[in-house]
């Protein structure tokens, strides 16, 4: 196990290094003169200003020198400065990152809470009305684009019925939970959750739907296996056969793709945060693109990529814990 973790961490570092390399060159792949492109719409800028920005972005250096400077900067916590805000990118990102993490994890939670019971029930009641209902749900969930679902949810639940707010974030969840725990009332927590519901559902629906299908089919495979028949032949109570022998095995395929799905959700935040005016890094990235704030785009891409790699690393480790067969390979 230790050796495995070490190897996986090493691979992850290599991937991060590759990402760093690509991101450090991002500014160079802008067609034409990057600084002209970035500064379009800034007519007051002198040639001298532009020259200074070129220096700052390292465009005068050879590729490898630029890369080296970038790495040294990143290692020291310097992700460059935003052209628009004229403040360090790291600060901009770290104030918005918690909102994105909150949204992503909460959608994953909702996706799992929907998918696990629905996947299992549709499998155990194969070909029943519940099963067909589950299939229809999954089909719609998979094929509806998240921004469309978001807009529909806003129209129905915020505009028409006014049960959930249409946009924005209340207290961050951890703050709200802190208040609830320290006896300052549940009001803040309730408000935070109400703001979270619509964007999380819009973001997580596709993942929930995909998981319903996956859990259903792996559960169907598992309940037909010989080891389940043997577990029954041992005279174990039905709940033990289910909880101890079937459930864990049926979840293995889903756990393996959970990392990818978290990545998918993270990607989805770019759109959903924009639709719901959610103050996270997804919305920041979209704004940075509109502003042509390349250093900020660079920084957001880097941070997102590192999160992606970390998530996959964690999932791999969890997977090895769940399925001992690969633990020893």
């Amino acid at each position: 196990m230790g050796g495995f973790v070490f190897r996986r961490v090493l691979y992850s570092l290599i991937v991060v290094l590759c990402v760093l390399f690509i991101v450090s060159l991002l500014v160079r792949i802008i067609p034409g003169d990057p600084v002209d492109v970035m500064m379009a719409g800034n007519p007051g800028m002198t040639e001298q200003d532009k020259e200074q920005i070129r220096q700052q972005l390292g465009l005068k250096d050879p590729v490898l020198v630029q890369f080296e400077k970038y790495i040294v900067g990143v290692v020291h916590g310097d992700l460059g400065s935003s052209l628009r805000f004229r403040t360090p990118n790291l600060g901009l990102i770290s104030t918005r990152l918690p909102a994105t993490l909150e949204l992503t994890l909460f959608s994953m939670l909702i996706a799992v809470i929907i998918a696990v019971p629905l996947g299992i029930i549709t499998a155990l009641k194969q070909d029943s009305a519940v099963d067909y209902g589950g299939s229809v749900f999954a089909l719609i969930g998979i094929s509806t684009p998240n921004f469309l679902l978001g807009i529909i949810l806003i129209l129905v639940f915020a505009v028409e019925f006014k049960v959930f707010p249409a946009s924005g974030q209340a207290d961050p969840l951890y703050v709200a939970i802190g208040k609830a725990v320290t006896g300052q009332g549940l009001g803040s927590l309730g408000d935070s959750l109400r703001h979270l519901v619509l964007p999380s559902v819009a973001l997580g629906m596709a993942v929930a739907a995909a998981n319903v299908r996956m859990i259903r089919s792996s559960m169907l495979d598992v309940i037909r296996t010989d080891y389940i028949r043997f577990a029954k032949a041992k005279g174990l109570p039905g709940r033990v056969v289910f909880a101890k022998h079937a459930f864990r095995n049926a979840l293995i395929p889903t756990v393996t793709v959970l990392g990818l799905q978290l990545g998918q959700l993270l990607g989805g935040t770019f759109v959903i945060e924009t639709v719901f005016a959610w103050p996270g890094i997804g919305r920041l990235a979209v704004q940075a693109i509109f502003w042509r704030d390349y250093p900020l785009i660079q920084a957001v891409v880097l941070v997102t990529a590192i999160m992606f790699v970390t998530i996959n690393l964690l999932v791999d480790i969890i997977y090895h814990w769940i399925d001992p067969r690969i633990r020893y390979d």
Partner: protein
Amino acid sequence: MNEVILDIQNLETNFVTKKGIVRAVDGVDLQVRRGETLGLVGESGCGKTVLGLSIMGLVDSPGRITGGKILFKGEDLVSKSSEEMRQLRGDRISMIFQDPTVTLNPVLRVSQQLEEVFRYHRGMKGKEARQKSLELLSLVGIPQPEERIDRYPFEFSGGMQQRVVIAIAVALNPELLLADEPTTALDVTVQAQIIKVLKDLKQQKDSAIILITHDMGVVAELCETVAVTYAGNIIEQGDLETILERPSHPYTVGLIQSIPKMEEHGKARLTAIPGTLADPTEIPPGCKFHPRCSRAEEVCKKTRPVLREVSPGHKVACHLD
């Protein structure tokens, strides 16, 4: 002679499929006595596994027991509730399956899979269940059980896994053990070891065993009596010697002849029975075997023969003797 502990009367188990009703078990009559080892032989698809699962109460939909009785010590298993059957399974009646490499749960340690039998049938936990489990592993010939008990099934060879499966099945000294081709999936040398394990068990426990197999060699090693199945019926039953030496049903005769025999110059000779098993959705009228029977007469095409005793302990379902 010991008393009859299992008395199956006219048992029928059907599967409703798109192609029609599959009569996998179609009127089986079978008796097993305490401590007896009965070999249940017959071609692939003739309903041996389904018969075993019917006794266990483990026929899954679309299958269903549609008629007959399974009297186990006088109590009819067919009419028992699923909770009553659960309590019986793994305790008084056990079953082991063909392929040991898929019978154990791949993500649970061997110890967990053994100990849960004691836990859910006897309420034993912790040290006590573990001690019992270790004893069982030695009983089935697994060396250094203390070192191995906490491993996962995939760390065992196929033969060792089958030993674990057998240990689990006999953990609570069942009165009846159903062994569905316990050696078929194993190498020849390993087969011999598993047969030895079963033989030793027979001496130490007085479970009755129904040994389902294609292999007459295994039957000759282990069984006192033999029942021959054809298309969902028992067509002949008798003690080992009678069946091997004086088979009466033409199908049994063919089956015995199909055992490879060594001739003087060492060449193996195989006499297969011509034809194939009837499609279980389209059962021929009369004797089910008549289309393949070289001695078939008019009566065989019209009336189904019933299983009747031709000499003490020897039963045959055939019009011709």
